[in-house]
């Protein structure tokens, strides 16, 4: 078929009346303390949405015809009403894809999941070996994930996802990850490490080196067909060939994030007041936030690429990921910190000594180290409840949030994950 992707992408850039899909972190509670957790999860927030709150949101999503939600956390299955909410969503024609570390995937649960067309499961795994995985996700987490995958495979659940955040320590395991996925009849999904949440503390130590980025790109070019990426690596398109994917930042345009207390953010990797659009408990509900938020309206306007617009790779990479820039202290209209042309490194080197912005909330377990090696992190006070919204300034936006990927925790979500537009002609 003849395809012209450009006009459709233009439609998406200016926003749709409803998201195509969205990420919904159901809880900040988590049994793990992954060092790179993008939502700084650990402890439940007392202001978490109630079961009734959640059902109201689902009712809205059904009315807005949001096809499915990417549910994460925290570890979403620790919510006592998790299965009730999953059933409610699917009964109301809202499909569910949820991310889990495998904690509650017993043989009985696996059988039940295998029986539903409306539920998809992603198991988070950040190492193809226990050694590599557990260094990031915690002792015993590899075994827990492997057990869950075995239960899903035994129950006949074909095509569940194994979701991997790519780090300096697991890039060399790409083939091994693929082999694991194949052995369980699952599909591999790899996503980009972002300096969001606790990821900001370990980003310097964990993000792939320039040489590894190239290795990853080459691997994707040769294996891309059957590997999902949530479009999270479009900054690598600067190497030449565009990778499959939407190749645009969907934040606030076709995707967004709802956090456990009902705050709506532009994307899962941008949990910061700068990207807060509103709260689902406000009188207009989720639809009111989606349609009337000043922040989202700004993101749907034509954006400036700043210094990047003079780069020959700009059309391909669109300046990279908004969240990656923000949490490394780079201007949103400048290069991505992992710019393949090296402009990001240069920008970081001259960014000055001011500390990059910190995430607005931190629900990490208390008293447990969440650093890797030489990590340096100071305790951050927990903030609860809705925070005042704040618009992005006009110079901010565009460059492209990629919506995708990240980390660990149970959620990785990328709303448009794996969503592929055919190449423009």
């Amino acid at each position, binding site marked *: 078929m003849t395809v012209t992707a450009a006009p459709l992408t233009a439609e998406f850039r200016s926003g749709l*009346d409803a998201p195509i899909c969205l990420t919904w972190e159901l809880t900040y509670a988590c049994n793990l303390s992954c060092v790179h957790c993008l939502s700084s999860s650990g402890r439940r927030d007392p202001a978490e949405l109630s079961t009734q709150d959640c059902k109201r949101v689902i009712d809205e999503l059904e009315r807005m015809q949001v096809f499915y939600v990417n549910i994460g956390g925290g570890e979403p299955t620790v919510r006592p009403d998790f299965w009730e909410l999953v059933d409610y969503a699917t009964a109301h024609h809202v499909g569910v894809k949820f991310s889990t570390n495998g904690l509650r995937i017993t043989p009985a649960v696996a059988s039940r999941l295998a029986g539903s067309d409306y539920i998809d499961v992603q198991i988070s795994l950040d190492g193809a070996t226990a050694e590599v995985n557990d260094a990031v996700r915690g002792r015993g987490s590899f075994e827990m994930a492997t057990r869950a995958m075995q239960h899903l495979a035994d129950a006949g659940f074909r095509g569940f996802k194994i979701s991997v955040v790519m780090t300096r320590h697991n890039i060399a395991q790409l083939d091994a990850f693929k082999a694991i996925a194949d052995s369980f009849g699952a599909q591999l999904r790899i996503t980009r490490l972002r300096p969001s949440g606790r990821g900001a503390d370990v980003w310097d130590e964990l993000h792939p080196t320039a040489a590894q980025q190239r290795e990853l790109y080459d691997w994707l070019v040769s294996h891309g067909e059957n590997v999902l990426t949530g479009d999270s690596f479009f900054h690598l398109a600067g190497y030449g060939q565009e990778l499959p994917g939407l190749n645009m930042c969907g934040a606030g345009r076709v995707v967004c994030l709802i956090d456990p207390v009902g705050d709506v953010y532009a994307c899962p990797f941008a949990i910061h007041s700068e990207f807060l659009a509103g709260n689902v408990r406000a009188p207009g509900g989720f639809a009111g936030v989606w349609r009337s938020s000043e922040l989202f309206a700004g993101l749907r306007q034509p954006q400036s690429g700043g210094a990047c617009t003079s780069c020959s790779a700009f059309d391909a990479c669109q300046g990279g990921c908004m969240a990656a820039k923000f949490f490394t202290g780079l201007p949103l209209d400048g290069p991505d910190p992992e710019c393949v042309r090296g402009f990001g490194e240069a920008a970081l080197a001259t960014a000055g000594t001011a500390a990059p912005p910190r995430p607005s909330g931190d629900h990490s377990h208390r008293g447990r180290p969440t650093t890797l090696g030489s990590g340096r992190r100071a305790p951050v006070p927990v903030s609860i409840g809705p925070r005042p919204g704040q618009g992005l300034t006009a110079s901010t936006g565009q460059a492209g949030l990629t919506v995708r990927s990240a980390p660990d925790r149970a959620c990785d979500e990328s709303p448009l994950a794996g*969503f592929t537009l*055919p190449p423009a002609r």
Partner: protein
Amino acid sequence: MSTNGQTAQPPATSPEAGFDLDAAWRLHPQVSVRPERFGALLYHFGTRRLSFLKSPELLSVVSSLGAQPSARAACAEAGIGPAELPAYARALATLATSQMICGRPDDRRKDGT
């Protein structure tokens, strides 16, 4: 997720790609359609794939498939002229390949012809 988006639109020229315009078709029961200004979004809950209809006319055709005795009749109903028909057949073929639409083998020509 496994939503590999596809775009179905009437291309300028192309063969009918083997699509049976005279057969009875319908939207797959697991597909949800969301009208948009550019056409529509389609999501298949079974395959978890997303597709796009890139024109309102194509949406009209797809929407009426289930009520028309054939795809050809659905196109006529939507005002598609003979010159455009091959392009629409090709778009429908794409949708059939991705299971967004499916045949109605037991539901031919209720008018008795």
